[in-house]
Structure formats: C-alpha cells, structure tokens
C-alpha cells in the first residue's frame, strides 16, 4: 500500500477508535456543546452576548478537539507502548501522523460546523458571513493547538496525570480568552495575558468570520499570533518526540 493509502487507513482506524471511546468523544465533542447550551440558557435571548458566545465556543471546540485530544491520546499511546510497536512496523511515520492528526482536524472542523449550525438554527445567529476566514482561522487554530498538544504530551509523565496537566492549561485559557464574554471586561492583567495567547485571537477571527463579516485581512495581527504559536508548537512537538 502506498503511504497515502496507509494514511487513509490510519485515518479510518482513528475515526473508529474515537467513536468507540466514550470519554474521548464526550470531552472533546460533547463538552463544548454542553457549555454552549448551558451558557446560552443563562444569556436568554440576548443577541449581543450570543454573538460572543457562538464564536467563543467554536474556538473552544478547536482547542478541545486538538490540544486536549493530542495531549491525552499521545500520552496514552506512549504509555501503552502502542507508539513503540508502531515504530517497529513498516507503517511510515508520516502516514501514521497524517491519519492521526487528520482525525483531529476532522473533529475540529465538524465541531465548528456543528456550533455554527446550532448558533443559527437555535439562537438565530447569522450563518458565517466570511467562510474563507472561518476556514483559515479554524485551520490555523488546528495547527497551533494540535502541535501544542503534542508538545505538552512530551512533558506529561503518565496518563494518570494527563487530565491535571491539560486542564491546568485549558481551563484558565478558556476563562481569559473571551469564550463566554468579551475579554475586554477582564481585569487589565488578564486581558494582557489573553492577548499573547492564541485562543483569544482564534475566537476573534472566528467572530469576524461568523458575526461581523471581518475577513482574514482585518485580523492579520491575530492570525500572526496564532501562527507564531503554531510555529513554536511545531518545533517543540518534533523536538521532544518520544516513542516510549
């Protein structure tokens, strides 16, 4: 089989594994949707706040399906010796990673679409006004959070502690990055922190794409921050990679 065909086989396997793992499916797929429905019910029909919440949850979904999922999965695969076994087979590393990462990318895009659809159908938020910006920011977010998740897995000592490591980052980043409310309402120190982190800029970019129609060219600064994190994450992901 060609490397591309093997990547496709790995992708299909990852899809199967994802849906067979209730906790993975819940934490990366259902949790953002549950948060969306809960917080939206608090906001009632307040259109202005819903227009912050929908792109916020879309950005959060990108992080959950890539950053959290990569850190959990790779720690598990490493600890179980599954990566080591894989390295002993003729499966090319690039094919494996393409299938493995491709599955996370698929999760991220599907989830963003689900959030957008819920936003429109239930909460009367408009369909995205700039689809290109939606795809560009989702794609940049996937690369940044995916590679950062891989990098984080290198420092997580074992699977038992993975949830602590992931949530120690995920929860604070979620609260400062304007997911549920505008980050401008935060104390200045937290707002400054959010400015250097990627999630706020991803949420802003998605907000432009979905709500205001601001395109990629209007959020180039934010895109640059996400891209910087993607570059740093990629270097750390590759450099610290361990098979066992």
């Amino acid at each position, binding site marked *: *089989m060609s490397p591309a065909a*093997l990547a496709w*086989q790995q992708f299909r*396997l990852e899809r*199967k*594994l994802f849906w*067979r*793992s209730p906790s993975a499916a819940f934490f990366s797929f259902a949790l953002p949707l549950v948060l969306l429905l809960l917080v939206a019910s608090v906001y009632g029909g307040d259109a202005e706040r819903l227009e912050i919440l929908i792109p916020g949850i879309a950005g959060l979904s990108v992080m959950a399906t890539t950053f959290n999922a990569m850190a959990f999965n790779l720690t598990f695969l490493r*600890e*179980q*010796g*599954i990566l*080591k*076994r894989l*390295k*002993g*087979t*003729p*499966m*090319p590393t690039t094919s494996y990673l393409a299938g493995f990462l491709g599955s996370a990318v698929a999760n991220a895009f599907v989830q963003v679409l689900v959030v957008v659809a819920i936003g429109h159908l239930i909460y009367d938020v408009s369909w995205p006004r700039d689809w290109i910006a939606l795809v560009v920011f989702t794609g940049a977010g996937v690369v940044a959070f995916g590679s950062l998740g891989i990098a984080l897995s290198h420092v997580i000592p074992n699977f038992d502690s993975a949830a602590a490591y992931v949530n120690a980052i995920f929860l604070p980043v979620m609260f400062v990055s304007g997911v549920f409310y505008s980050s401008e309402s935060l104390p200045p120190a937290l707002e400054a922190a959010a400015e250097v982190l990627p999630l706020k800029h991803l949420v802003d970019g998605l907000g432009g794409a979905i709500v205001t129609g601001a395109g990629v060219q209007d959020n180039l600064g934010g895109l640059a921050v996400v891209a910087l994190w993607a570059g740093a994450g990629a270097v750390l992901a590759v450099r610290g990679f361990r*098979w*066992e």
Partner: protein
Amino acid sequence: MASPAIEVSDLRKSYGPVEAVRGVSFSVQRGEVFGLLGPNGAGKTTTVEILEGYRRRSSGEARVLGSDPAAGERQLKQRVGIVLQAAGFYPRLTVHEAVSHVAKAYPDPRDPSETISMVGLADSADTRSNRLSGGQQRRLDLALALVGDPELVFLDEPTTGFDPAARRVAWDVVRTLRELGKTVLLTTHYLDEAQALADRVAIVKNGEIVAEGPPESLTPASAGYRVSYEAQGRRVEHQTDDPTDLLHRLTGDALARGERLQSLEVARPTLEEVYLELMDEDER
C-alpha cells in the same frame, strides 16, 4: 552461501557512564533460531533493540538482513517481525481488526484470520484487546509480529508471564517458524526455553557473551565432564576434560583394591549447571 541474517561485531551501548552492552559479537544464519540467554539486566534487550532499530549503538557494527538497522529503512521493517517485551494494543480494537490493520503496512502479508488461528486466538478474533487475558494478549503480540510474513522474527522474552498453555503455543509457533525457514532471534531468561527452541545459544552476562554454541555443546572450560561414584557411603565427585583417562585411573585403582565403584556416573553438565556456574563466577 547467503549472507547471515544478523551480523554483530563488537557492539557497544553506553547510557552515560554505564556500559550496558560491552563488545558483543555474534552472527545468526538464515533459517536459524538463535537464543540470547541471560538474567534480567544482562544487556539482552538493549542488544535486540539496537537490532530492531529502536536504539542507536554507541560503537561496533550491526547488520540485519544486510542493512544497518539504525537507518530505519522501511524496506527492512517490511521483512522483520518484532515481539516487544511490553507493548500495548488499541484497547477498543478487536483481535481481527488489530491484526488486519497492521497487515496493511506489509507488501505481502499473511491472511489475518490464518495468522490469528496460528497463534491459537481464533475463538477470540472478535474480542476487544482490553478484554483478553494476559496470555491471550501475548498471543496477539505474536500474531501482530507474524502477520507481515517476515523473514526474520525478533522475540524479546516471548513467554515471560505466559501460562503453561500459552507457553506451549508460543513454542509451537517458534518451531513452525523454523520449519518455514524463518530466522528467529529470541531472548529469554528461561533455560529450558533456550534448550527447547534454539539451534544456538549465546549466554549473556553483564553486557558480554560468556559462552556460545548449540545448547548441548555449551561447556565452559571449568566444568567439563563430571564423574561421580559412592565410596564409604558418601558421594565422591571429580571434574575432568578427559573422562577416558580419569575413568581408566579410577576403575583401575578400584579393581586393584578389589573394590567396585558404586553408582558410577559420567555426566555432561546440563545447560542449567553451565548457566548457573557462569552466573555464579563472580561469587566464587
């Protein structure tokens, strides 16, 4: 004659100041079952993992099927099957799904169902791997290593933790591999396993090979033959490299005294005795 399946010369591996493998040399012919026998920590696994491509050697030469294992070539991996000491499975894949998936990476794999039957897992083919018993998981290890129909199979302590039935299956699989003309490098700390399976054995101790040869011929210089008999109610034992001469003297003396040597025995030391003696040398 075909080049050896594995050729290792003066292989060394250091971890910081600790030298785990200290100048190991051996070669394994095609179709041969070669055993690395030694206690835990002797350097067997480090040696095998260098040959499998998992670790880089510090110095020395290693060729596996004519290639340098450190290069990690896909062409080499397609011809090699590996049973690791401890490697997990996707917990939510069934036996058949796991074996079929791995088979896809090889150019000319065995039939997955046939491979599963060969290792005695046919009844569990649709069981998810996290529901397999320990022994069944080791059988799955074997199936995953064999499904690519490799020329060379590495078995790193393939039966550690096996129940007796699973062990018997693993032994049968190794014998089947030999009948198929495959080359096998196995490590074990079980003597009987090395004796039962290996055409040749190298005994490894502290990162060095201390004895090498067919199991029945392994005789360290100090042991030789053992001649024993009973005299005045106690057992007298001599060790010699030349039992003919010793027996001649002992029996001649006894006859001259008009005695009989009671319960006279001439024995080659078993591999177990050789092994224990080699392992004990430090303490003597």
